[in-house]
């Protein structure tokens, strides 16, 4: 009986845990696909990557409502996470303050704030990558952060859904993943930095998960390219989750499975006690 139940419980736990090495890479040809929890978009063509280093970036914080030093420190920390995870396979360099907006032809990687308007109303930010469509070499990448969704530097570890502010460092970490060539990974749950949605009032996405680390290593450190689509997938958005996620059920499923096993053990113990007390 225990084996039979374990045989049922194990697949449930594996389902809840999701596949390993699921990271996705931006590619030169991504067909349209609305994203959802558990759904990665297909990716075709050549995976995208930087080929010259360091990847220099400038920051235009004019419309951010934050002191420049605060913005610079948060964004630098975001890039440092990826650089560290790659073992310096990719390096980034802060190249100064700017007052320009994004421009895919200027060869300058700009992080700036603007109102993304109706096209991206529910979006914290987006990354615009300009690349050679044949080789996949990234030539320019700009990050646009949405003034319509306030970003602040939240206290480390905050997890307060009622806080209407997004965490700048967390959002910047996600967008820096795009800038580096990673796409959305939606099968492992919202804890993954490259998950397509984020929520206000939490800083969880400051911290790369093993899957995020495997992704950046696969591109720049010769790590195993076991993720999806040419590496991978992506699409979707860096949007605000106002709906809650069905992935919230994953811990419940694991807990339920654990309770089932515990109940079986107790039952067997009771049975053996009953048997031993019988004459």
């Amino acid at each position, binding site marked *: 009986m225990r084996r039979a139940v374990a045989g049922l419980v194990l697949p449930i736990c594996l389902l809840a845990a999701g596949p390993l090495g699921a990271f996705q890479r931006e590619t030169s040809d991504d067909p349209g696909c609305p994203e959802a929890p558990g759904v990665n978009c297909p990716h075709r063509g050549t995976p995208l990557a930087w080929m010259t280093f360091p990847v220099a970036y400038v920051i235009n914080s004019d419309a951010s409502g934050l002191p420049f030093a605060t913005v610079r420190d948060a964004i630098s920390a975001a890039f440092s996470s990826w650089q560290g995870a790659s073992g310096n396979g990719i390096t980034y360099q802060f190249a100064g303050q700017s007052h320009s907006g994004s421009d895919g032809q200027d060869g300058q990687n700009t992080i700036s704030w603007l109102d993304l308007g109706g096209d991206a109303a529910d979006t914290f930010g987006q990354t615009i990558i*300009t690349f050679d469509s044949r080789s996949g070499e990234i030539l320019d990448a700009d990050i646009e952060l949405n003034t319509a969704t306030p970003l602040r530097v939240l206290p480390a570890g905050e997890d307060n859904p009622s806080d209407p502010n997004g965490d700048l460092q967390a959002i910047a970490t996600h967008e820096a993943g795009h800038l580096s060539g990673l796409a959305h990974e939606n099968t492992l749950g919202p804890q993954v930095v490259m998950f397509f949605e984020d929520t206000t009032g939490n800083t969880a996405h400051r911290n790369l998960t093993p899957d995020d680390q495997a992704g950046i290593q696969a591109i720049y450190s010769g790590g195993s390219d076991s993720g999806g689509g040419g590496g991978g997938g992506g699409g979707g958005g860096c949007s605000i989750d106002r*709906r809650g996620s069905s992935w919230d059920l994953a811990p419940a499923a694991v807990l339920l499975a654990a309770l089932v096993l515990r109940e079986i053990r107790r039952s067997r113990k009771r049975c053996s006690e009953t048997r031993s007390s019988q004459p």
Partner: protein
Amino acid sequence: MRIAIATAVIAAWIGAASFCDASTLPGSLRLAPLQLVGRCDSCSSRWEGGSIYTYCEVSVLRVVRGAPQADAVVVRQRGGVVDGLAQKVSHVTLVEPGGEFLLFLHPDDSGSWAPIANGVHPIIETPDLGQAVDGQPLDEVIRELGGDR
């Protein structure tokens, strides 16, 4: 006890299975002034300042909300390919020639229509559902949106 285990296992299974549920369309999409089912006939891209924009001619197959002025609308989106240089926006689903889409559009500054956030939903033909959007039958989605009354 056996029933309890069976119930727990079934409940856990339902929980796991729900990970694969199609998400319902975000409520914000219902505010789009033009909602339609269309087929993308052709697209062309060009640089505008520092960005590539793609213009697609979309034949209107079914209007869900709003009143397009013609049998076809032009949908403008950021991203595309021009002379070997490509540009993509991290959260944008592009309309592609040959595909059919459920579109949620608003008029943009150029006189074209632009999808609102998450406003492009490819329609796929499935053996069990027929035409489907996000894993749901297209007709059902349109009914939910209040169309085809």
